[in-house]
């Protein structure tokens, strides 16, 4: 990426990575099920909790590659 001269606040194509989390958590048919359970927790619950962590990692990544 030719990001050497960009300033924070300008558009970056890396921002499209945020799209992943929108698709992953806003489409309930993906995760509205009980199996597979994890330590007794239904998939519905641990999947969405896992995405909290994944989305934070995505945001941290985007921050690091787009910072000044």
């Amino acid at each position, binding site marked *: 990426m030719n990001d050497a001269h960009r300033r924070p606040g300008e558009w970056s194509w890396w921002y499209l990575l945020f799209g992943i*989390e929108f698709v992953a*958590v*806003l*489409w309930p048919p993906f995760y*509205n099920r*009980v199996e597979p359970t994890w330590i007794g927790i239904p998939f*519905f619950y641990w999947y969405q*909790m896992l995405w909290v962590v994944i989305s*934070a990692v995505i945001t941290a990544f985007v921050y690091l590659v787009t910072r*000044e």
Partner: protein
Amino acid sequence: MQDVNWIALSIFVLLFGFISWLGFAAARWRRGDLDQLHEWGLGGRRFGTLITWFLLGGDLYTAYTFIAVPALAFGAGAVAFFAVPYTIVVYPFLFLFFSRLWYVCHKRGYITAGDFVRGRFGNRWLALAISITGIVATMPYIALQLVGIQVVIGALGISGTGVAADLPLIVAFVILAAFTYSSGLRAPASIAIVKDVLIYLTAFVAIIVIPIELGGFGKIFSAVPAQKLLLAVPGAHTTGAYSAYATLALGSALALLLYPHSMTAILSASSGRAIRRNAAILPGYSLMLGLLALFGFFALAAGVDKLPEYAAGFKEFHNNFAVPALFLHSFPSWFVGIAFAAIGIGALVPAAIMSIAAANLYTRNIHREFINQNPTDKEEAQMAKWVSLIVKVGALVFILFVPTQYAIQLQLLGGIWIIQTLPAVMLGVYTRWFNSWALLVGWAAGTFAGTAMAVAAHLTPAYPLSLGGYTFPGYSAFYTVILNLLLAIVLTPVFNAMRAERAPLDETLAADYLA
């Protein structure tokens, strides 16, 4: 109601006393001239990444959330978990839109969304609409924070009749009002640190101890009735619970950061970089909110609503009593004191920030714009301090004399109203393309249609939208902000052609939005 729990009460009072002292002492923290509005109302824009994390965390994840989300899980089941996708998708918006907003507000000295819209679009009436929406949406939100305090005070076993029953709440509020008046935003910022340490401690102890007591997660979830465990699969010709769940999450995320108290905490950061970093670390609170939602199921599995000692609490506070009852049932008294103090103090932080935010809006965008255009710095700060007091007294009176249900319903409407400021505020940080009068028409139409939808849906969030034989149940705020946006897009070229607006009046420069 059960007997007074003296050990828990003592610890609660001790911690409450400590944060009261802290709230007053905060006036001297990172000292600034509190006779200037940006010092009193934004803490001098001096908070770095870590303090901003505590402040925004304490501000966005309110005490009421911590009571109401598990209560919804307890009563309605899986749908309560919308709070998790909601607090996932909110952070890309924080990262992309609000860090830019921080830069322009910092460069131009704006302290409210109204200031920004006034500067960007040069239309005082649009700025007035944005500001009034902010104040009106905030008021019931403050009142709801008091419900959080009420529930824990009740759960500590304090009850009475008449004035005596309300006395602890009044005392808590007088303290809150006094330290907000004297210390401004520095008070909730310092208290947020204590509150968040307590709340994380409570959540992590509870997530480990209670499942062990109840025999593991497998046992807990098998106690949850099947229809509460998952979202109902939609029938024919409807998107059912799926679209309701997704639009509730997305719409709430779009609305959250537009609230004045969010804006105040965002603008008090010391840099746009601190905002971006927070978009990556604030999900720590989302994780905790997810755990707290599970506490609703713990309460179901423990069967606290069937235990005679909590019957009175459930009768008075309904499902909002689920988590306090669970804590009383599972923890020794001293830890109950800590957990309840976390919730009680957790109510003070957002309540303080909300009252400051409403005061900033009134002072800057109503009083200064329409009543006294040339106040001195000192007059302006003094006005804001008084308004913050009036706002809090209003919320207290509301909660003491009006049924709680009304506050909840008004807060629902508040979400529908505040989202209508999205085109002007959030899209405004990227584009000046919109005609300001088109934005105003869009705002009015969205507000009206949203209110009508909410009333038609009997003041529940999901409205069953019918199109071509299909039904799409969804969050009214989400549907109406689309209507708002479409109107603004269609009317912009029309109004431009009618020359409703002479030259584009924009005092901000493209470079203002960058670091």
